[in-house]
């Protein structure tokens, strides 16, 4: 059994420094694979992520979700053959790009932390939070127009989670812009992380983002 980490262009595939990692090529694509891991764990998941990030720092990648394995290298090559054209098309969509993540939420005040005294109060809090998050999303949409290839809102009711697909040359300017916006939003807790491999833009049927 082997672990599957990422798909990249064969021509751009980086030299792999980590012991046990290997590149399997088929057609224009290559897949980064490694020895099977033991029981699923937080450290194992983070190690998976770090390997993907290491490859992404040197080449365009489709990150493979943690937990994917193949019986052997022949089975992994068969996957490359089977999905090659679809994966090549997805790689083209994220070519030259990285992902930046934004989380924003109102701080929990002592009053809010207490249980609502009525259904109406609970609903009022929900409406207020939703308006705040939607307003922040609109502001960010305007701020990021022309600076990102795609912006996608990820699931989450308690906070606003946006992922931005950004050309690598624009990563630092966009980060700076977002951090400046975050500093000005004293009514919210905002964090900006990345650049990451473009995890949020490569899943099956992943067309839910807004092209900017």
């Amino acid at each position: 059994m082997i672990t599957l980490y990422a798909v990249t262009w064969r021509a751009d595939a980086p030299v792999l420094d980590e012991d046990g990692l290997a590149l399997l090529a088929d057609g224009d694509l290559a897949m980064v694979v490694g020895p099977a891991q033991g029981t699923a764990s937080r450290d194992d998941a983070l190690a998976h992520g770090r390997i993907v990030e290491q490859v992404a720092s040197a080449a365009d990648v489709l990150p493979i979700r943690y937990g994917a394995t193949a019986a052997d290298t022949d089975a992994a090559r068969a996957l490359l053959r089977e999905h090659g054209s679809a994966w090549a098309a997805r790689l083209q969509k994220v070519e030259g790009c990285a992902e930046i993540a934004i989380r924003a939420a109102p701080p929990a005040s002592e009053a809010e932390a207490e249980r609502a005294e009525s259904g109406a109060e609970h609903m009022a809090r929900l409406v207020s939070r939703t308006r705040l998050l939607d307003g922040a999303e609109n502001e960010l949409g305007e701020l990021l127009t022309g600076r990102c290839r795609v912006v996608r809102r990820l699931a989450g009711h308690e906070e606003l989670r946006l992922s931005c697909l950004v050309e690598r040359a624009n990563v630092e300017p966009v980060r700076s812009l977002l951090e400046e916006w975050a500093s000005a939003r004293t009514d919210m807790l905002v964090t900006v992380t990345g650049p990451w491999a473009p995890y949020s833009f490569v899943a099956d049927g992943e067309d839910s983002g807004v092209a900017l």
Partner: protein
Amino acid sequence: MSQMSVVADDVALVDLLDRVIGEGVVIGGDIVLSIAGIDLVYLGLRAVLAPAHIAGPSALGGDALTGAP
């Protein structure tokens, strides 16, 4: 390291886990998705690392773990 940098590092850790576990290319067919047990591990990490405003029960269940809409 300042407390702010620790918080930023922790959020980055959660963001990486969010992506590794909930996003990326999903491979089906003959591939085995061996993520049994990960949700509990992830839950524990979020409980420790999540900022106070998302550490309540609603942030620890449902879509916060699976990324499902």
